[in-house]
């Protein structure tokens, strides 16, 4: 009977496989730019129709939270010189002021968690209720983009904080909700319900730029 001789190892020498893989790995490491499609979403107002001017909206001054940024990147918040620090808290206080809530707003107020209800100061000089409240950001043509984005970011933060608190999430968790499935969408909708994000960005003025 033919006996098997001492056979050679049948394995392919895979030692250099790692080297080849390393080479490819380094190539992709160098060429990679991880795409960052993150940013702050904004929806611009529709185009102005010259035949159809937008309706005049008279809102009470108390329902508008005005933030002016001048060409030197200085802030004028509600008529007073201010720093961007703490602006988000001020916006939150403004939105949740509930100065003169109507029936609907009272129902909204009752649905809010205690942490948000505590912010309602019912100051007659501030917003009537969240549906009326508008945060208006007006810049100058000379304002730097960085400062504008900072202010816009803070305004967004105020709203997201409120939404997140309504659904018992942290702000980061709320923002990370993608609405991919029905449960996430329901959470998003619950946060926003009856509380529209009203941030208005006025056309920059030309003075002093």
């Amino acid at each position: 009977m033919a006996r098997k001789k001492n056979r050679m190892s049948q394995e392919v020498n895979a030692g250099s496989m790692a080297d080849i893989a390393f080479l490819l790995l380094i190539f992709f490491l160098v060429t990679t730019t991880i795409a960052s499609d993150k940013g702050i979403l904004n929806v611009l107002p529709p185009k102005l129709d010259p035949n159809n001017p937008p309706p005049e909206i008279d809102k009470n001054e108390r329902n508008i939270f005005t933030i002016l940024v001048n060409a030197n990147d200085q802030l004028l918040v509600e008529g007073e010189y201010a720093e961007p620090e703490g602006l988000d808290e001020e916006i939150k206080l403004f939105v949740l002021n509930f100065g003169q809530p109507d029936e609907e707003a009272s129902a909204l107020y009752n649905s809010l968690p205690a942490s948000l209800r505590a912010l309602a100061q019912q100051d007659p000089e501030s917003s009537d209720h969240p549906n009326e409240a508008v945060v208006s950001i007006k810049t100058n043509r000379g304002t730097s983009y960085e400062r504008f984005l900072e202010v816009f970011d803070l305004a967004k933060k105020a709203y997201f904080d409120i939404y997140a608190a309504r659904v018992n999430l942290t702000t980061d968790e709320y923002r990370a909700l993608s609405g991919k499935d029905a449960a996430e969408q329901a959470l998003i909708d619950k946060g926003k319900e009856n509380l529209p994000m009203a941030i208005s960005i006025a056309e920059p003025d030309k003075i002093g730029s």
Partner: protein
Amino acid sequence: MAKFSKKTKTSENIPTSALPDIIFMLLFFFMVTTVLREQEILVEQKIPQATQLQKLQKKTLISYVYIGKPKNTALYGSEPRVQANDALLNTADIVQWVNRERDALPEADRPMITISMKVDRDVKMGPISDVQTELRDADARRVLYASVGKVAGN
């Protein structure tokens, strides 16, 4: 006397047969996440920081606009310019460009086109507002202010 002798000799070399697998795993990760740059950025891009970042679901809807000071100041001047695709645009041509981008999308997605504005942090609001006016004219009203996450202090 007790003898301390090693009973078994363990093999001294580390098995490296799994090494290629690990490396391949890394390789595939980078292959999947990589986006080869298909265009050269002609303007300076120092993206500002922000905290309230959101991610868009469908990347195909995004068209990119780059705004910043041209890198080649001798050729293009030092005023902020708008770049789309691989050429610098005049503000007046933006409407046309948006329409072209929109036509490239499937019909159902066209109203949802999103312009990602990658703006250098040193640009002033003037040019940006001009671009936004053009975007409104083109009816591409969803705008994403591209920014990177702020690390310290939320």
